[in-house]
């Protein structure tokens, strides 16, 4: 039931299960109603900034998808739009990465982090209008940056390609976001600091610091040569490990227990997972330079740290899995949970894969190949993107007061994206591995390798088409939700396929209705 207006106060998150619905007393109902009203008021304080950040994120998701498809097609059909300098592969690719990383994933993560901060501290979000304003600054900075990359002002430093006029506004906007999160935290009325908040506090401290330090050292200091490469990969890997990962995990730690109505399995594992991530993740960067002209100790330290990442990853995986145990049937009903669990599994897989890839013997094969690109997408798409979708499915209706307009569209969204990313990662992992084996055999002519990879690159374009289809569907759902299509939220929601109102695709059920969880519902 508590897919509803949210954390039902001190009585514990109410489960979607029929048992709980049956045993509920009127007193508990009353308590829950009051808690729900409190949460609704807190949600309301985040409405403007969170929706502005989510909407911006979606805009960049579509832009990034178009650039992605262009870049992908160009790798197996190089004549595709090759007349104009601004559409050449070497510009479209970084434009894709930067719009996705700093537009879609980062702005979506900001919205997620702020929404969770207000909820978990039980305090209204600080400076909501200022935060919403920061999104404008961010968007303008990124737009100018993306155009800059396409018109020839890319720095060609991977993950830091945005030209010098673009990074400062984004950093400034981020500082505003961080200040808002910390001030909200300082005004908290909830004494218990939930695990998601640890991750968010860490992330909003780490990222602006990291981003500013990396940009300053890279472009305004008299440093040159190989030390820039170690700086580059210290930054780029930390953007994943100290920004997207903690926010993604914060969302998982919040949404899984929330949707299934059950506490997180182990506090101890949460603590171990958090601190081991903080300790090991930021030392991983050197594994991007294995075999390169860098000090051997640096590479070795990074390999050790990469393998040590198994500790936080397994801790989180066990914690989430044990929380989910015997509740997997909820996956059929809840779009949020489907995306979130998919993302959590992808996190475990991509992290373990990353630990293996850092080993010298594996890296000897995978380095410089498309395998790495597949791995990156398992992380940034399978984990981060799917987690953001899951979060939006949960948060947006609670902010707009409208439910999603179509269950069928949501289902299509899930399956196009899920199949898309599986095909993407599968194709590039196999193709990349073969490419690496061939590269290491000096007898194999280079052009033979190029030829061999082409079918895998074509499969990647198909995968990109599937994912983009899902993005467009979700954009449609989001716009409909914002513009008042879709049923008004009255209480907790389950997706009900059997709904007599076939044109609506689903129906809402009130907390007191015993019918809600008896129906076989799927999304």
């Amino acid at each position: 039931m508590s897919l509803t207006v949210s954390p039902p106060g001190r009585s514990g998150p109410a489960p979607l299960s029929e048992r709980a619905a049956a045993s509920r007393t009127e007193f508990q109902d009353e308590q829950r109603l009051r808690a729900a009203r409190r949460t609704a008021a807190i949600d309301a304080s985040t409405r403007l900034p969170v929706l502005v950040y989510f909407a911006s994120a979606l805009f960049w998701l579509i832009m990034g998808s178009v650039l992605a498809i262009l870049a992908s097609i160009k790798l197996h059909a190089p004549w595709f739009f090759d007349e104009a300098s601004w559409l050449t592969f070497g510009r479209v690719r970084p434009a894709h990465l930067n719009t996705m990383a700093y537009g879609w994933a980062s702005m979506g993560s900001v919205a997620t982090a702020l929404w969770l901060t207000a909820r978990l501290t039980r305090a209204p979000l600080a400076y909501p209008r200022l935060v919403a304003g920061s999104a404008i600054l961010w968007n303008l900075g990124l737009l100018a940056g993306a155009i800059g990359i396409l018109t020839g002002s890319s720095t060609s430093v991977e993950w830091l390609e945005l030209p010098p006029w673009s990074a400062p506004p984004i950093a400034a906007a981020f500082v505003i976001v961080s200040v808002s999160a910390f001030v909200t935290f300082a005004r908290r009325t909830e004494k218990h600091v939930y695990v998601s908040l640890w991750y968010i506090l860490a992330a909003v401290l780490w990222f602006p610091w990291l981003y500013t330090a990396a940009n300053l050292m890279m472009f305004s200091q008299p440093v040159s040569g190989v030390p820039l490469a170690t700086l580059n990969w210290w930054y780029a890997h930390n953007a994943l490990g100290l920004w997207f990962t903690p926010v993604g995990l914060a969302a998982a730690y919040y949404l899984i227990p929330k949707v299934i109505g059950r506490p997180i399995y182990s506090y101890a594992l949460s603590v171990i997972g958090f601190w081991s991530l903080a300790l090991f993740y930021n030392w991983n960067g050197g594994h991007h330079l294995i075999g390169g002209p860098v000090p051997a100790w640096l590479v070795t330290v990074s390999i050790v740290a990469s393998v040590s990442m198994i500790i936080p990853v397994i801790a989180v995986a066990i914690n989430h899995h044990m929380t989910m145990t015997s509740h997997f049937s909820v996956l059929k009903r809840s779009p949020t949970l489907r995306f979130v669990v998919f993302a959590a599994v992808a996190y475990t897989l991509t992290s373990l894969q990353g630990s293996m890839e850092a080993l010298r013997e594996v890296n000897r094969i995978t380095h410089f190949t498309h395998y790495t690109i597949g791995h990156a997408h398992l992380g940034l798409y399978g984990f981060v993107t799917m987690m953001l979708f899951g979060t939006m499915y949960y948060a947006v209706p609670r902010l707009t007061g409208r439910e999603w307009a179509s269950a069928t569209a949501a289902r299509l969204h899930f399956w196009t994206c899920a199949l898309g990313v599986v095909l993407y990662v599968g194709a590039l992992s196999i193709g990349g591995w073969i490419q690496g084996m061939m590269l290491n055999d000096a007898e194999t002519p280079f052009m033979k390798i190029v030829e061999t990879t082409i079918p895998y690159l074509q499969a990647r374009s198909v995968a990109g088409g599937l994912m983009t289809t899902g993005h467009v569907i979700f954009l449609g759902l989001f716009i409909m939700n914002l513009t008042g299509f879709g049923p008004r939220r009255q209480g907790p929601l389950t997706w009900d396929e059997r709904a007599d109102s076939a044109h609506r695709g689903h129906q809402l059920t009130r907390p007191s209705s015993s019918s809600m969880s008896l129906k076989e519902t799927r999304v």
Partner: protein
Amino acid sequence: MSDHHANGSAPATSERLSLMNYAPPIVLGVALTFLSSWLGLVLAPLVQIGDQGPIPTLEGGLDQYPNPSVGRLELGRQVYIENGCLYCHSQQIRPEPFGADIARGWGPRRTTPTDYIYDKPHLLGTSRTGPDLTNIGARQPSAEWHHRHLYWPPSTSPGSIMPSFRFLYETRKIVGEPSDRRIVDFEGVPEHLQPPPGYQIVPSEKATALVAYLISLDRTQDLPVAGAPTP
């Protein structure tokens, strides 16, 4: 193991007393772990290899290796950067037997930090969708070859998936004598991309600079430290 709620029911005593309920220990802890990695992965390499200078290559120190890219070479480097060549081409040679870089003829030895002291930003690259370019100048010193290749890659390298960079070239009417910088050989170039009669294809300043930069890429100089075997 105690329950752990998403803002739900009252936490167990151990959780209520946990330091994880306070900002200072969390903020201090994550700040320290972050700083430690900056010291290790950023500052330490800077101290260790950041102050290397060029080495004299002729007796009496008359020449040095490496040399900074200046003038046209620097412009060429900028063209390389703005068009994102490094997304497909690396500039680093790994030591044997770590990969087949040397066996493929991409370089006679592994590269070392000395090879890159003037590179800002660095262009080591992380992808080999195309071949490594560490020593492309030594391997392919012909400017004419590079221009043909950039204008229409399959003309010199059948099967290549490199994009055409013909936006760096100009179609100009021949007035008087044709330019001696024009592309002469159009074998393998599709008809519609060949110049119409009375016209010629000449490299722009950027194309000329890019080719000059590519030809300058030669890190075959003997370096004593490059013998070190550790990957």
